[in-house]
């Protein structure tokens, strides 16, 4: 039941955070193992989804902090993302795909807390209030963290465009 409801959500969260499918699969399994151990402590008065996503967020950030020295690069973007390219306008589609590739790699440059906030808000489309509940932070802090992350990624994208222009 919990697997049916949450496997996709947690797997995507792990994939977007860690950047590779095999790692995301291992992380998802660890998170579900942690969930089964933590379930007896769940307070039924709380929002289960937010509680579970907080548990997943903590597991992902802990794992990142434990292994950050071993990890320098994210994996390549999944094939299904390439399929999302604009079929009507191939040139525009390629430009968008390149932007997604740069951002995918750029997520690694963000600190883990900022990366998690960006993933929840910008990729998963959650509201600021929901992100704040999952991260256990005030809404204002979450908002400024996300805005700084967006700006940092915009700078990475701009630098990449400048260097590509110079190379041409």
């Amino acid at each position, binding site marked *: 039941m919990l697997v049916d409801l949450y496997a996709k959500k947690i797997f*995507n969260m792990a994939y977007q955070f860690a950047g590779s499918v095999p790692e995301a699969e291992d992380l998802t399994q660890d998170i579900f193992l942690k969930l089964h151990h933590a379930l007896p402590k769940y307070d039924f008065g709380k929002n289960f989804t937010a509680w579970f996503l907080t548990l997943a967020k903590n597991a992902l950030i802990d794992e990142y902090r434990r292994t950050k020295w071993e990890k320098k690069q994210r994996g390549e973007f999944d094939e299904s993302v390439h399929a999302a390219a604009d079929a009507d306008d191939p040139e525009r589609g390629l430009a968008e795909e390149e932007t997604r590739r740069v951002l995918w790699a750029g997520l690694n440059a963000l600190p883990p807390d900022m990366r998690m906030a960006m993933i929840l808000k910008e990729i998963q489309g959650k509201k600021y209030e929901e992100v704040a509940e999952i991260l256990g932070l005030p809404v204002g802090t979450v908002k400024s963290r*996300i805005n700084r992350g967006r700006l940092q990624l915009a*700078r990475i994208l701009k630098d990449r465009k400048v260097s590509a222009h110079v190379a041409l």
Partner: protein
Amino acid sequence: MSPCERIEGLLASYADGELSPEEKALVEEHLASCPDCASLAACLKSVDAAFASFPEIEPAPALINRLRAVPHPRRRFRLSFDILLRPSLQPVFAVLTILAVGFSLYMASPDKKRIDQAINRQIHLGYSAFEKLTSRAGALTDSLGAAADNLFVSLGNLNPLGKAGSSDR
């Protein structure tokens, strides 16, 4: 802080349409004259658009099977006091507290003997009242039984008359 740094700090809110008209005019004026900041603002728009188009990917069926096989922890017997903190038990605790206070007052009372005697008297009174009630109930059932007997006898007497009436015809 340089004008570009100041504008950079406003760009995210500008992209979200959250600036006041004055701030918005300030940003637009700066972007019109600064290609570097204009390029950054365009990149910020691209970032937002690209993130919005990141698709979700399906987990592999093998992973789903692995997740279904994640072992549930064995329930160990644990003495837990959580159950005692349930709000539904609060009236029970209130009644138990009142009873405990009453009992301790009774045990510590200097007039315990008199209270005991009063309780005994009440019990005796109650018992004798109950006995009276049962004897009255017995008398009532006796009289009801007698009345029923009388009724049956009367009905028995009426029946031969009916028979005699039918034989006359």
